[in-house]
């Protein structure tokens, strides 16, 4: 009977939770837009912006990996497509406004994603990983060898010709932050809508057992390709933001295999099949090395060795934290946080 007792007040509770949720979202939005008032250039440019963009890239991969169960280690390739498309569209079609360019760049990345997702119809797991790795190498090669993509720039790098919306210049740290946060908020909403929709449920069915999914009438192939497309759409926009909202410039090597692995780690550490978990994972990946570096500024660690040894020690500590985290919390930081909140709640309930 316990179940009944518990489920009895669900409905009003759920409504209440929905209300609380809405308030939380509104509060979160206000907070997000108030950030530049509190944070200085350093915080915006080197802490918040990269974390938010990497979190967004994490969402991109998570839609594919966490929700549809397909492996990709070519995420950075799709980011580079987004970045180079944005650059070329801004350069060669100067009449297009920035938001339209971002969407188009995302769509171009999505097309590439669908093409490189084709092997997923036949192969699975690690083998699929190898085929997406092909995308990784192909696009890095393409953008370094055909200088048309970088407008024949001497150093093969691209930098945004203009970063503005309706004559409002977005070059400053605050401007770039607003560009990044506004894009990300919209894409988070889109991600939630997709995951909660029929498409999202079908993805999860495919992830859990694709044979069963096809038996109940889900068109597995089409859904898998859609997953690749949407995932790449997110990654493409994240790549454009990374190049222009964060770095200010990029070449093909800014989106190398390391970056793909970073995104993979963000998904694993943040939590598979979550949306907000990606931001926890991104914060961990982006901030831990900076944090360790700062720690050695504050605490005198010279007894451990010289500067070189310390720099290497930071890598060891970073690696150790990842290993411990994966052993202790294989479901990622988001699940740790969620269960922590539940534990708090149950304690509050028992004390009542």
């Amino acid at each position, binding site marked *: 009977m316990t179940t009944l007792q518990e489920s009895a007040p669900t409905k009003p509770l759920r409504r209440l939770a929905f209300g609380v949720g809405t308030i939380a979202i509104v509060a979160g939005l206000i907070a997000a837009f108030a950030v530049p008032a509190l944070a*200085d*250039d*350093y*915080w915006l*440019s*080197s*802490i918040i912006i*990269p974390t938010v963009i990497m979190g967004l890239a994490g969402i991109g991969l998570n839609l594919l990996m966490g929700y549809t169960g397909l492996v990709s280690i070519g995420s950075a390739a799709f980011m580079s497509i987004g970045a180079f498309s944005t650059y070329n569209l801004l*350069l060669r079609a100067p009449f297009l406004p920035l938001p339209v360019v971002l969407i188009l760049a995302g769509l171009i990345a999505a097309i590439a994603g669908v093409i490189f997702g084709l092997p997923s119809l036949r192969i699975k797991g690690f083998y699929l990983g190898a085929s997406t790795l092909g995308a990784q190498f192909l696009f890095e*090669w393409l953008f*370094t*060898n055909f*200088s048309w993509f970088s*407008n024949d*720039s*001497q*150093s*093969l*790098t691209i*930098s945004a*010709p*203009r970063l503005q919306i309706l004559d409002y210049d977005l*070059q*400053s740290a605050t401007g770039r932050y607003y560009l990044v946060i506004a894009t990300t908020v919209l894409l988070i909403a889109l991600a939630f809508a997709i995951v909660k929709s029929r498409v999202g449920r079908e993805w999860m069915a495919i992830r859990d057992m694709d044979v069963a999914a096809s038996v109940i009438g889900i068109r597995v192939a089409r859904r898998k390709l859609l997953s690749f497309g949407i995932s790449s759409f997110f990654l493409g926009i994240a790549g454009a933001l990374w190049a222009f909202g*964060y*770095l*200010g*410039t*990029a*070449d093909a*090597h*800014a989106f190398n295999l390391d970056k793909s692995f970073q995104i993979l780690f963000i998904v694993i550490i943040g939590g598979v099949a979550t949306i907000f978990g990606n931001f926890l994972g991104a914060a961990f990946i982006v*901030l831990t*090395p*900076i*944090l360790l*570096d*700062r*720690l050695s*500024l*504050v605490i005198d660690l010279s007894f451990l060795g*010289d*500067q*070189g040894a310390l*720099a*290497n020690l*930071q*890598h060891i500590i970073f690696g150790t934290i990842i290993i411990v985290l994966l052993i202790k919390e294989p479901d990622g*930081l988001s699940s*740790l*946080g969620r*269960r*922590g*909140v539940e*534990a*708090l709640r149950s*304690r509050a309930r028992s004390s009542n």
Partner: protein
Amino acid sequence: MSLLTKTMSLAAAAAMAVTLLGSASFAEDGTGQQLYPLFTYRTGPYAPSFIPFGAGNIDYLRYINEVEGGVDGVKILVQECETAYTIERGIECYERYKNGYNGALTAAIYPHSSGLDVALTDKARIDKIPIVSPGGGQNIATDGRVFPYQYPLVFDYWSEAQIIVDYIAQQAGGYDKLKGLKIATLYHDSGYGRDTIEPLGILAKKYGFEDIQIPVPHPGEQQQTQWQQIRRANADWVFLRGWGVMTPVAIKTAARVGFPADRIIGDIWSGSEDDARPAGAAAKGYLAVSVFPPGTDYGILNTLKSDILDKGKSDLKDSSKFGTVYYNYGVIEAITFVEALRTGHKKFGNRPLTAAEGQWALEHLDIDQKRIAELGAEGLISPLKTSIDNHKGETIAAKIIQWNGQSWDTRTDWIKADASLFADVIKAKAAAYAKEKGIEPRVATN
């Protein structure tokens, strides 16, 4: 540990992290000092080149601080920031130190990476912070009217291409003998490596030699086909534009296909001890362009040896690296910084310089032969004079060095590049860049 305590401790750690990441710090007060943010890459694939390079930098600045009592009495505060040679970490370091540190002022930032130099272009223009890249900056930024905050001091790859051709002409017995010669360029397939394609095309047209361009994909561990191609083409000279592992592999592969080492001229980043030594016996006779001549036989290096190294104050763990190409590069770079400060002090007084004052100083550098002699750097650096029109320095020069199996011998005196040769091309490129970016070039009024 219960789940609750676990979560709470995670939250506590996060809170502590936020405090740490903020600007709160308990380090010494830097007021009255000049900040030198030292961007390091003591980790990552290029760490072996940084370690002697950073040591040269630190040792010279320690000498200035401890022996000379600072630059005109102003102490330099060296703050390291590890980038691991990645652009992302570099940007964090830039943001961390662009406005100074605990009262110490930032006058200029040396990013120590060509990629980071490019990435900081827009940011530096907005923040008005001079970015200095001796030997590794953007050639286009020579035009200081379009790039007020970018300083590709000392050297660039276009001048390097010209110096190589000059040297080959010297060996052949005159420019007219270049006609019909075959010069193959084996380059690292990256923005850096491709940078000499255009100038060599111009030079080939001018002198009538055959220009063969052959790319090597990163990192360059396989070069069999490329060297067979060079052999088949019957090239007379090879200009090797390597980086990292590519250089020793090139020298060894050349030996395997029977191409003589003394007909290969390495680029400035292919000309360190660590580039030649791993190739073993095959490297004997191998030539390289040197802007940072190796050796310990310079006045300033003797001073550093007695005042810093012998007193155990050096940053160098392995003292055999003293006087290597990268160590000397570090010393030369530190000299450019210190001399820029001195230039600024003459105008603004003996106090720490702001970024705006640093910019003025970098634009009015004049390290002439007399000053070089006073510094004890004769033969180590060639004269350097900058202006708004020329952020690189007017007299670009390099030496050719040769590996004798153990160390480098200097083969030539300074070979000067003719700055006028490419000036128009660079101006035109800078103008195109200004147009693309909507920048109004400054008028040069020195």
